């Protein structure tokens, strides 16, 4: 066992930080196969997650690609140029999408915070009803609701505006924020807030200086979730934005509709990659470890 490669050696660390070689007990001979199996599984999952991106990447670089050719007959940078061309809608769409998603994430968390507090912290009469009402927008198809309330957006001159799109996207996002934060509040020791009160913090500053920092991980998750929902939202944006508010999914659907596969593939990459990077960065930030370890390491 002394010649074991370092990757399969279970390492423990003493309080002083010096590693101790693992004792070689009866379970030690299982460490190697278990670790290899785990790595294989992680690898397979990563491949499964990333494989669909490969044809997209190929398509986005294809100039001409006809059946039955296995690879594009002609490569072209047209798709990539489309993404960075200042005259195209793409860059503006990226900005619109990011702006709307960020605004939606912030607003959804701002609304979800007190809502989550109420359902997570307090036992009151009708709590289940409130909980259900909060979740209702996720259960009831958003399309049906939006068709119903669209008339109000028109009446208040909110249709075809970015503000209107932000507002309508709160519908599918606030429930998630409320549920995520509600779970966090349910696990919060409320005595922290009482302690802060007795140290001279008023109700608002208790939230700001104690509760928000205590719940920062849950808030980050809620913001991330709502950002992603907004980022990929299509139907509500189309209905209320009326085609005037051009987010990336709208541009993508337009490209698909016009059978421009190269443009569609390039746009699809643009829709997929930023959230992927965001999730990886967030996972890293939340745990202080590499994203791979967070997502797959504990399998």
């Amino acid at each position: 066992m002394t010649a074991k490669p370092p990757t399969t050696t279970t390492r423990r660390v003493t309080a002083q930080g010096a590693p101790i070689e693992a004792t070689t007990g009866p379970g030690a001979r299982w460490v190697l196969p278990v670790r290899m199996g785990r790595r294989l599984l992680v690898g397979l999952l990563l491949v499964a997650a990333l494989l669909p991106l490969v044809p997209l990447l190929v398509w986005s670089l294809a100039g001409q690609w006809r059946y039955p050719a296995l690879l594009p007959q002609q490569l072209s940078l047209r798709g990539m140029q489309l993404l960075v061309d200042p005259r195209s809608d793409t860059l503006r769409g990226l900005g619109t999408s990011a702006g709307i998603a960020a605004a939606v994430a912030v607003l959804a968390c701002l609304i979800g915070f007190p809502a989550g507090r109420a359902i997570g912290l307090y036992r009151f009469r009708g709590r289940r009803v409130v909980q259900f009402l909060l979740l209702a927008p996720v259960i009831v198809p958003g399309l049906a609701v939006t068709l119903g309330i669209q008339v109000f957006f028109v009446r208040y001159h909110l249709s075809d505006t970015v503000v209107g799109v932000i507002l309508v996207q709160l519908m599918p996002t606030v429930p998630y924020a409320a549920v995520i934060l509600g779970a966090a509040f349910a696990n919060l020791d409320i005595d922290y807030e009482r302690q802060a009160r007795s140290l001279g913090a008023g109700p608002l500053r208790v939230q700001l200086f104690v509760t928000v920092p205590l719940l920062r991980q849950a808030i980050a998750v809620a913001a991330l979730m709502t950002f992603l929902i907004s980022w990929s939202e299509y139907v509500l944006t189309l209905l209320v934005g009326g085609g005037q508010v051009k987010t990336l999914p709208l541009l993508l659907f337009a490209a698909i509709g016009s059978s421009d596969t190269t443009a569609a593939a390039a746009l699809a990459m643009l829709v997929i990659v930023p959230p992927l990077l965001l999730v990886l960065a967030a996972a890293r930030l939340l745990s202080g470890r590499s994203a791979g370890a967070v997502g797959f390491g504990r399998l």
Partner: protein
Amino acid sequence: MTGAAITLAGVRKSFGDTPAVRDLTTDIPAGSFTALLGPSGCGKSTTLAMIAGLLHPDTGDIRFDGRSQLGVPAEHRPAGLVFQKPLLFPHLNVEQNVAFGLRMRRLDRSQTRERVAAILDRVQLTALARRRVGELSGGQEQRVALARALVLEPRALLLDEPFSQLDATLRAEMRRLVKDLHTESGVTTVFVTHDQTEAVEVADTIALLLDGHLAGQGDPEMFYAAPPSLAAARFFGVTNELPGTVRDGQFTAAATGLRRPTTLPDGPAVLVIRPETISLTSPSGDDDTMVGVAVAARFAGTHLAVDVQLTGGFLVTVYTPVTTSVRLGAPLAIDLPQAAGVVLAADRSLVSG
């Protein structure tokens, strides 16, 4: 700044249909170290939370130096609160935790730094000022919590069983620290505990809370020498109770015929005798002795607890020095001076409740 005199006047508090505090009236003297003592569920923590302003009484008034605090929110009351759990804010380090209250008061930076450094020095945590709170031991955590409350120079320091989660040695050390801090600052200290030994050791005044109301208040000696009620006597560990009746200022024990003068009105009463105030002796026929047989002896570290079966069938526990040799079954007598034992009205706790 000196400590505030705290007055509770007719305070009541219920949670739903469950009363936690029923008609509590008490004065906590300025600068005193008062233990709010009682079994769990007696309303002592609720009382402390009301003094701190975290709960509001249903009726009654809470005053600091005569000024009602009912309209004053917790964050503006001059009271520092330390809980059973340290509740250190995990996103702040030791220094920042201690500075929290000063930051909330918008004290300027240099003054904040000065005061934080001074109090950390006092509780011997200067070396750990930059530590993350997750890296502290239980005793260190409670010292930070104490410093965090005291740095605000409160006029009342409210402690809610702050050391009950520490081991015995550490607890004794923390008691000494709190006691010293109290002496140095003169801050009125209210200490909630369920442990009467702790209350006796640390406090100069004890307010005994039983079942949501005050069952006696006084210095620790009083609860031993002249307990205010049978329930109070029981809480302080009296095991010997001789039931009897009072007639015309004279108590007569039912089982033994033992008599004691009393000022109690006629009716059922109990003579309570602390096991450490009586001693074993040989039978002599003296008026102050009662004869019986030793039936059990238990070693209790500092003393020997001997159960004596009196003639008449009554069982009395006596604490004697561990060096005493006791032969079980042998006849002996209990020396019972007139001063030992107090006559208390029977079931007074039920009557007044």
